[in-house]
């Protein structure tokens, strides 16, 4: 194509575009008479315009942000750094590039992480990193990739650690959720690694599927203990961490709310990340949604103290409870460290998970107590009505008894059903209650009316019993109007 030809195509394209869609074809056929090539060019351009309008509207820097964040540092492959002969790049992240390298002093192969100077230039961070690396090097656990040394070579910092050959959990997740036989042992291994670190006061700060590798022999290894500390800066406004680590740009979802807020974190931040990891391994989905936008939105809610609002329950009920507790917004409601978490995970395996007395369970107690109390009173009153059915003129006593029996059966069955649900499937309680509750209200209201009517029938001859019936009737009303809503609110049972 020549520039002149392109000019011609341009003019026809715009003239056609200015016309009605229906008139375009005739116009083009008329104007390109005898030049099918020109007709085809303009037609395909118009079609492309209709289909892809706005495809370059977002500037390149918006859609390719990740390209900018990568360090332009030249490759170290092939160079001799101190006593390390640097080999191929085996990974890269926001904090630096990782090479396979040979430690010539000890004759072993290591993973050498070249830390991006941006993160190590600041003396405060540098000092902190040195301290963290030193304590991480003291960690020795089969599920932790051992840190060998923090090296300063020509003013740059490098971390030499155990080279782990295998697949990251992220890569495993690409094939879907972990199988049930694999899930729990993997989580126990990761929790054991965290527990060993937490016992020594070391926090990982950046646990995610990318940082856990399953070696070819099956051994699980957690990488990069304490390294994320270098990203925690003193200026730290909200979300600084998230982008400063660079890598976390698209996956802020592993950071506990207090960590996202830029505050000091402790072992409970790792517990949160573990919860997210556990959910993801069990379902192959992030607990807060699929796209980074919705994850970020939910994280923001969590920072404001909201609940994680998980859409469904995990297939393993014990694990579901553990993982949910890990992901609570308030650190105090999570496990205090991976040590307690590990104990619970192990007991899922052996089937002896203790009923957690979380504050949620505590608040539910009053609601459960109310359900059971009303059910017991209803049963008791029906029995009483049976006893006094002859006190009134036939057949009113028997009719009242049968009506009350029917209503009480409905009310008691439904209330006990709700109580049972709250014990076995607490996560479905809100929806279940929303469905059943209108029937419960109707049955109890009619029941209260039945008590009052019976009281009216026997009043005069049996005043004591009539007074009892009136009291129970009024109490039932009061419970429906006051106690029921109060305990429900207190228990936090809401419809979503």
């Amino acid at each position: 194509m020549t520039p002149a030809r392109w000019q011609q195509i341009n003019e026809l394209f715009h003239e056609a575009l200015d016309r009605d869609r229906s008139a375009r074809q005739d116009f083009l056929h008329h104007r390109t008479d005898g030049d099918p090539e020109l007709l085809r060019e303009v037609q395909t351009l118009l079609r492309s315009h209709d289909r892809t309008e706005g495809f370059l509207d977002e500037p390149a820097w918006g859609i390719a942000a990740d390209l900018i964040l990568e360090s332009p540092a030249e490759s170290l492959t092939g160079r001799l750094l101190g006593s390390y002969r640097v080999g191929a790049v085996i990974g890269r992240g926001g904090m630096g590039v990782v090479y396979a390298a040979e430690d010539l002093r000890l004759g072993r192969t290591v993973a050498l992480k070249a830390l991006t100077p941006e993160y190590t230039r600041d003396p405060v961070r540098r000092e902190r990193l040195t301290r963290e690396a030193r304590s991480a090097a003291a960690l020795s656990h089969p599920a932790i990739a051992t840190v060998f040394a923090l090296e300063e070579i020509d003013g740059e910092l490098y971390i030499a650690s155990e080279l782990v050959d295998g697949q990251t959990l992220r890569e495993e997740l690409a094939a879907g959720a972990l199988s049930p036989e694999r899930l729990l042992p993997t989580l126990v291994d990761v929790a054991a690694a965290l527990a060993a670190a937490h016992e020594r006061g070391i926090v990982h700060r950046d646990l995610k599927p990318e940082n856990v590798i399953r070696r070819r022999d099956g051994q699980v290894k957690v990488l990069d203990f304490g390294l994320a500390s270098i990203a925690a800066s003193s200026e730290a406004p909200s979300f600084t961490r998230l982008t400063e680590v660079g890598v976390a740009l698209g996956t802020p979802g592993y950071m506990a709310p207090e960590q996202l807020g830029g505050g000091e974190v402790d072992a409970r931040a790792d517990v949160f990340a573990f919860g997210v990891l556990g959910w993801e391994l069990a379902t192959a989905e992030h607990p807060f949604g699929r796209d980074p936008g919705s994850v970020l939105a939910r994280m923001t809610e969590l920072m404001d103290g909201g609940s994680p609002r998980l859409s469904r329950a995990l297939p393993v009920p014990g694990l579901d409870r553990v993982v949910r507790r890990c992901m609570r917004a308030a650190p105090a409601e999570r496990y205090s460290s991976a040590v307690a978490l590990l104990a619970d995970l192990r007991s899922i395996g052996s089937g002896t998970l203790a009923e957690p007395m979380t504050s949620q369970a505590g608040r539910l107690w009053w609601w459960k107590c109310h359900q059971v109390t009303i059910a017991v009173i209803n049963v008791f009153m029906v029995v009483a009505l049976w006893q006094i059915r002859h006190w009134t003129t036939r057949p009113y006593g028997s009719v009242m008894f049968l009506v009350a029996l029917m209503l009480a059966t409905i009310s008691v069955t439904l209330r006990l059903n709700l109580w049972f649900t709250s014990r076995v499937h607490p996560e479905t309680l809100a929806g279940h209650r929303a469905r059943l509750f209108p029937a419960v209200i109707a049955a109890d209201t009619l029941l209260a009316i039945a008590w009052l009517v019976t009281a009216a029938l026997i009043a005069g001859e049996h005043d004591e019993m009539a007074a009892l019936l009136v009291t129970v009737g009024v109490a039932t009303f009061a419970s429906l109007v006051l106690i029921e809503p109060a305990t429900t609110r207190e228990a936090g049972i809401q419809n979503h």
Partner: protein
Amino acid sequence: MDHDERQSLETLLPIVYQELRRLAASYLRRERQGYTLQPTALVHEAYLRLLKDKPDRWQNRAHFCAIAAHSMRQILIERARARDAQKRGGERHRVTLDEGLVAGGGRSIDLLALDQALERLAALDAEQARLVELRFFGGLTIEETAETMNISPATVKRHWTVACAWLARELEDNSHP
């Protein structure tokens, strides 16, 4: 592009390149939502900073915008090439691999293919190719582009529409031969 312009581009490009890369990285790190980088803000900030250092180097803001857009294109294309090369060099071990997490959402555009298509467009109509560079790589608005190129906004719109349609067609033809 005349000789003088080319020469000034060659001396100024590395400076602008450095400044933009640095600014972009710090913007991205500060950005609360993560993804949306405002290239216009970036260009303006880079301009102000560089202007403060050596004001006589820049003929005017329009001149700077053109250089900045070209730098941005270079930065992105270089990075995309480097990443491509790394992907091809087989990675045996994995230590911590964070690539691919920074997905920019919905649509993905093959930057390298776009760059090549843009070269082909330049052969047909240099003005249109320059305009796409300013708009897409420089992030300039229609009005800013019009000002930089010294043409009317209506002309910018016309060129933009047809160039986008052409580029989209080229990219599709490439991916489904």
